């Protein structure tokens, strides 16, 4: 992938040969915001020919029906900031850029290859004024380990007391947040088993992640178990931090870079050949460390090397087969996390994992490639739009008749989980790895019974 976020970015012309008309637009046009991240990313803006093919891929356009809330509308706003027809602090720019989920569904619809995700981050970094209080608080907490740990521990304590289950029925933002918290309770119960594998596939470290380790620790353990069962040897990567995705998406590129450096250090130290990530958003961020730090001489090459080692856990499992487990007679549907489907372009591996589980019925989900509205902390900052995006998703899920919705990202798990609970659905959101893990546990149990 080419680097769009820095001044060295060029159109991916290699495959197109050398067109006689060089792409010189950005070189010639004066920029109204020189030196800003947006200025450096403007070659990406020029790739947009305004064809509109992105409209139907954009959840906020589908929910709000205003082209200002569509990719090409936002790109036009970015262009206007670059050419000076709108000021960087123009409220229109702010409003519609803020309203973007960052799902990058438009990228997989764009024939011109506009690097929308990078443009969005560059724009947010350029126009960055004040974020809403909620957002600032969350970003601050996630950047500070000493604040993050107690926050997540407190949340877990609440959850254990079943308080969120009660408060989750309340209307409004608080109710939804509580429902999200409650939805992080393990969705499948499984017996204990000791994973056995040859370790022949080499060493792997998992990114523990903040939310994953804080609220989905059982999924993290399951990830380690299924990787071992599929012949990886797990090594710890001590000193790892939050991946920085939340900060990058919010336009806090420096904050994101600081976290990225810490993680690069940690994963270099671990020496693991593979970095396994079970949170799609974090995986997408880590795969882009190389671009994030391209202008940092001390880290550019190391960042690229770390990025190259990152895999979504489903990619690893799909490559491995994965090993067969025991029967799990459930009806499951799969919803693709945007940062897996559109950012990482990992489409079939999670389905391959699910389909490998004996007796598991996988029913297709209409518009499974559309965003659920979670988008990091978007559902807390823009609850109305988020709810409007979630609504059709819940309707499609209901129509599948599935008891489980598999999706490999904590934000999506909580958004869909909370949505289902508040819609009084019995269905639960679950990480695909948890299902595979439960299947392995079931095999173990059956084997014990035979003995």
């Amino acid at each position, binding site marked *: 992938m080419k680097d769009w976020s820095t001044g060295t970015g060029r159109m991916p012309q290699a495959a197109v040969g050398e*067109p006689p008309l060089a792409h010189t637009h950005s070189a010639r046009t004066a920029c109204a915001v020189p030196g800003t991240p947006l200025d450096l990313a403007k070659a990406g803006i020029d790739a947009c020919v305004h064809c509109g093919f992105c409209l139907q891929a954009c959840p906020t356009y589908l929910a709000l029906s205003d082209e200002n809330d569509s990719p090409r509308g936002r790109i036009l706003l970015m262009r206007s900031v670059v050419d000076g027809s709108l000021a960087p602090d123009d409220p229109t720019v702010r409003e519609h850029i803020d309203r973007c989920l960052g799902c990058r569904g438009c990228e997989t619809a764009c024939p011109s290859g506009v690097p929308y995700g990078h443009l969005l981050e560059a724009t947010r970094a350029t126009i960055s004024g004040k974020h809403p209080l909620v957002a600032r608080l969350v970003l601050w907490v996630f950047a500070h380990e000493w604040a993050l740990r107690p926050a997540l521990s407190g949340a877990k304590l609440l959850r254990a007391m079943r308080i969120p289950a009660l408060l989750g029925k309340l209307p409004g933002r608080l109710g939804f947040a509580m429902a999200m918290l409650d939805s992080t309770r393990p969705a499948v119960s499984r017996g204990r088993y000791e994973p056995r594998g040859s370790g022949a596939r080499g060493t792997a470290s998992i990114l523990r992640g903040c939310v994953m380790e804080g609220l989905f620790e059982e999924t993290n353990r399951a990830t380690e178990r299924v990787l071992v069962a599929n012949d990886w040897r797990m090594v710890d990567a001590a000193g790892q931090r939050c991946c920085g995705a939340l900060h990058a998406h919010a336009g806090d590129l420096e904050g994101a870079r600081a976290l990225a450096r810490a993680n690069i250090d940690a994963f270099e130290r671990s020496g693991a050949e593979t970095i396994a990530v079970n949170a799609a958003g974090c995986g997408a961020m880590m795969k882009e460390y190389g671009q994030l730090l391209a202008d940092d001489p001390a880290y550019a090459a190391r960042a690229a090397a770390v990025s190259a080692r990152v895999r979504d856990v489903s990619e690893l499992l799909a490559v491995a087969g994965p090993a067969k487990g025991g029967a799990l007679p459930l009806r499951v549907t799969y919803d693709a996390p945007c940062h897996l489907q559109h950012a990482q372009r990992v489409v079939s591996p999670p389905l391959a994992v699910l389909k490998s589980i004996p007796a598991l019925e996988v029913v297709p989900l209409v518009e499974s490639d559309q965003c659920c509205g979670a988008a990091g902390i978007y559902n807390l900052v823009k609850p109305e739009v988020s709810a409007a995006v979630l609504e059709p998703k819940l309707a499609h899920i209901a129509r599948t008749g599935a008891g489980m919705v598999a999706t490999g990202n904590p934000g999506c798990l909580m958004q869909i989980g909370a949505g289902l609970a508040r819609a009084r659905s019995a269905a639960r959101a679950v990480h695909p790895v948890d299902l595979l893990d439960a299947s392995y546990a079931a095999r173990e149990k059956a084997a014990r019974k035979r003995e």
Partner: protein
Amino acid sequence: MAAPAQIESSLSGTTPVPAKVLVPRLAAIVGQRRVLARPSELLTYTADGLPGYRKQPAIAVFPGTRDEVVRVVRTLAELRVPFVARGAGTGLSGGALAEGTVLLGLQRLTRIVDVDVENARAVVEPGVVNAVITRAVAGQGLHFAPDPSSQAACTIGGNVAENAGGPHCLKYGVTLNHILALTAVLPDGEIVKLGNPAGEITGYDLLGAFIGSEGCFGVVLDVTVKLTRDPQAVRTLLADFLDVDDAARAVSGIIAAGIVPAALEMMDNPTIRAVEASVYAAGYPTDAAAVLLIEVDGLAAGIEADARRVEQICREARARGVRVASDADERARLWQGRKKAFGAMGRVAPHLVVQDAVVPRTKLPETLAAIRAIGEKHGVTVCNVFHAGDGNLHPNIPYDATDPDQARRVEHAMSEVMRVCIEAGGTITGEHGVGLDKLGYMPLVFSEDSLATMCRLRDVFDPDRRANPGKVVPVHSCREWGRHAAIAPAPADRAPAVVPVPTAPGGRLREETLRVREEIRAARESRTPLRVVGAGTWLDAMRPVAAERRLELRDGDIVEYVPGDLTMTARAGASLAALAAAARENGQCIALDPFGSAAGTLGATLATASAGPLAHAFGTPRDNVLGIEMVTGEGAVARGGGRVVKNVAGFDLTRLAIGSWGTLGVITEATLRLRALPERDVTVAIALPAQSRATAGILERLRSLPLAAWALEVVDAAVARALGIGDRPMVLARLAGNEPLVAAQERELGALGDPVAIEGSVWERLRAIEPPGAIVARVSTLPVALPELLGDALAPEALASRTLLHATLSRGVIRCILPPDTLGMLSALVGRAREHYAAPRTWIWEKLPADRWDALAPAPLGDRLSRRVRDAFDPARILNPGILGEVVA
């Protein structure tokens, strides 16, 4: 950037409307959030899918319901404010841009109102995305056939406005051929229903005129679309060539072989490389000079033979390789690459000019060579990606608009490309529309009279010219026609540097056209009504025409016939028999075979919109005519359409003239689309049982049989006797195609009875079945209702045992012929028939005794819009007055 403080009203002399008055009025209808007036929020609406144009609307308003649309339009009418309707804004002609006016966004009207699988149709709101219609009926064996490349995003309202095409319209036709009816709100706020969802169109084809009117005639509220049965089998082939000329020759070869592919697309090397660099990479060979993407579809039986023949033709044309898509995934990938090719150009350069010219298919090689030379001369890269089977070129030039020298060279190159295409006998736009972008080219293909006549038509729908002002027809063309628009003609950002074409269009009119013009002008002066007559075969219809003087059309020449293009241009006085004979000599046929006298002329067939058995497969005259020349009641010689198979330049005078019975103008010339005669052409007859219930059952099954018949007609026992093929009701089927295809269809028909092969001449005899002096009426209805209706009608005890009766099943049309000696019982018969064929049937009388027209035939000109069309085209009412049953003053 400052907000325009007020919106210019369209009528001179009226006070401009301040935005601060308009915004609250509109917000009261649609809600505050749905009215945008901040310039920064309007920025995204300054462009549509065509790069290079930016026009800032004053206000954008987004109604959410049909009722809100109507109220918004009425408010704008009251304040006389111009507006531009917009769907997804994916158009490629700058058609949906509003300069200083109100932009009316329809993207919130996304309801699929009704899906009727039985009758293969759906009613949808204008904001429904094209691909969503097909998705809504997925699994039902149906789809919506028009497939513009933007189908994943573009809306049906926009498809109607532009008469959108797409790769598969080569075989299936454009949007026009797939819309049964629509409801629109006219710019003055009146709601009109056009077309007929449950039968034949009566009166003027205002539906046909509306489709492709580029938002100048009104705002669509709902559309009844026709759904097409999914093909049983599809083969998608990718042929790659090291020479563009070879690819072009392969295109001609395929068409000449009589194969009608579902799609036949060409992409040249720069396009291939742009696509292969995108997320839609399809595996096209990046070193090929050109690839052809060819799809054949239809019944499984015939498909292999067609695919093999296509492959062979490609190899004979020196294709390096021919690859057949092995599964649905590969097929989808091959198509995705093609459909996203335009967007992929964004990789090459920041700006792009997109052209849409059409040339006759046989001129493809020389046109492509000329385009290449033009590109080289001006030092610009032309990327060709186009519908080769239609001759619909899309030469695109990616460039950098900020470089004035480059921009100027691109402009010159484009203008020269356009001239080459026009000189080759082509037109300026095949599917994108004129919009703003091609406004400057309109005078190159249409005479002043034609453009002025188009303005006349616009004025019928929108006398204030408030709907999409300044588009389609250059304003100066309209000016002489009285009311002037105060909206300044939108000067194109990139005004085409027009290179004059040596012979101006309409410059050389044929002698007879001049004579007809003189006669009409004289008649208008003297207020002498004229009866327009070709061969006179319609005179015995006894229509009450209040004219003594005859205007006769005698010129029967074939003006141009290029078999390789499958088009024929002939004068209106030509007999259909003569045209059919000329086509047959070249292994082709005209798909016009109307019931009635074989001596009928081309002009009369079109004027009366008469159809025959072939309409089952090929539709009626509106589906087979590419362009016409007519002399209006005002004595203007106007051309609609052109001589190429795909054309959306200008308002559709062609559809308007067809079926207008000469009351708007006299058709003097027409260009027809021809069909290649099939390898095998077999007619079989199947006798039907005598009981009505059983007959209905068989007809019901017949409807669902997988057949690709050219004609499928049900005849009653009296007709069968008259044809000498038996004395029971029969199904007649004309099975055409390659050997295996015909054999398979015979087998399918065997399930219904015992198909007996009969002479193909039976069709000629069926056409001429009516005895002289007969009374003829047509009843049309929903296809699903027909079997039962026919089952009863065909039974021996049925009401009119003395009638002759036959029906075209797929069209839902029954034609009843009453011998002259039934005159005495006509009223009684009609009464019983009316009872039997109760509403919502559509009645059309073809022939009646002179004194019965008033009593029996409702005047189709009852509506205000039709009367206004008549007034606009024939204000003195000198052409065939009374022929449509209207009251003659």
